[in-house]
């Protein structure tokens, strides 16, 4: 589906999201996403958010990829940092202990 028919579908979808009660737009979906994933979105907004995922293919797939991105980012840090643990030079330890000493 390309060109004119596709534009009509998107126009209808936009109209529906904007005017049908109980629906939110993709921009509002963006506003809710961080709180939704934190689990702090109030129940009413959470229901609107979850309903949006059901009728908006784009937001549904966007959310899955978004979630995976956050998982990927966390896992990358975990793995890379575990592979290369920081060695602490002895002179740093001595410098820290020395700087502490003069305190009464």
């Amino acid at each position, binding site marked *: 589906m390309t060109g004119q028919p596709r534009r009509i579908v*998107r126009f209808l979808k936009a109209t529906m*999201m904007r005017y049908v009660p109980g629906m939110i737009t993709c*921009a509002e979906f963006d506003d809710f996403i961080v709180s939704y994933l934190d689990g702090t979105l109030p129940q009413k907004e959470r229901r609107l958010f979850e309903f949006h995922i059901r009728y908006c*293919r784009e937001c549904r797939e966007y959310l899955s990829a978004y979630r*995976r991105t*956050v998982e990927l980012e*966390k896992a990358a840090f975990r793995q890379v*940092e575990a592979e290369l643990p920081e060695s602490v030079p002895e002179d740093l330890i001595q410098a*820290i202990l020395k700087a*502490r000493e003069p305190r009464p």
Partner: protein
Amino acid sequence: MPDNFERDDEHTLIDQLRRGCPRAAESFVRENAGWMMTVARRYVTDRALAEDCVQDAFLSAFTNIDRFEGRSSLRSWLHQIVVNAALMKFRTLRRHDPRPIDDLLPALDAYGVRVEAPWHQIATPAEILEREDMRRLVMKKIDELPDDYRIVLLLRDIEELSTNEVAGLLGLTEGNVKVRLHRARTALKKLVEPLLRKEFGS
């Protein structure tokens, strides 16, 4: 009750640190300096400067140990201190933003409907991170985010601080922190999409 033992140990250690016991101080430094270096280097890549952060953090910890109230564990208290020290150092270094974020923000069409090419399958982090060059690539993509966004991403997703804590650290409103976090994640999603997209037959 390992929990109680740990708490008792921590109480003893804090007492000793308050009394200025040199042996307690030494083991305290040896035990924590490593992971604190790891945290500092998330913000300050240069090794020597990251060492400065760790040193600053320990001095601040020794100075303020009397005021440690034990509402959190000693480790999370230290974590806050080293993140703070690293952020202070980071502010003096502020690099040039390597790329603008505009073309990486959430994409909506003229009607306000999201634009998202269909996904067939999404690779899991384990699949992607199996290869060493991919691990480096993901880290490089995170590093490419503009500073204002990358910092919020690190503080929220990697340090796992709350929106409220990040707002306090950066002098932003909570709403602002959420917007930046959302933009940072969306931008990163776009940057790693070639890795996440699993084409059929490949």
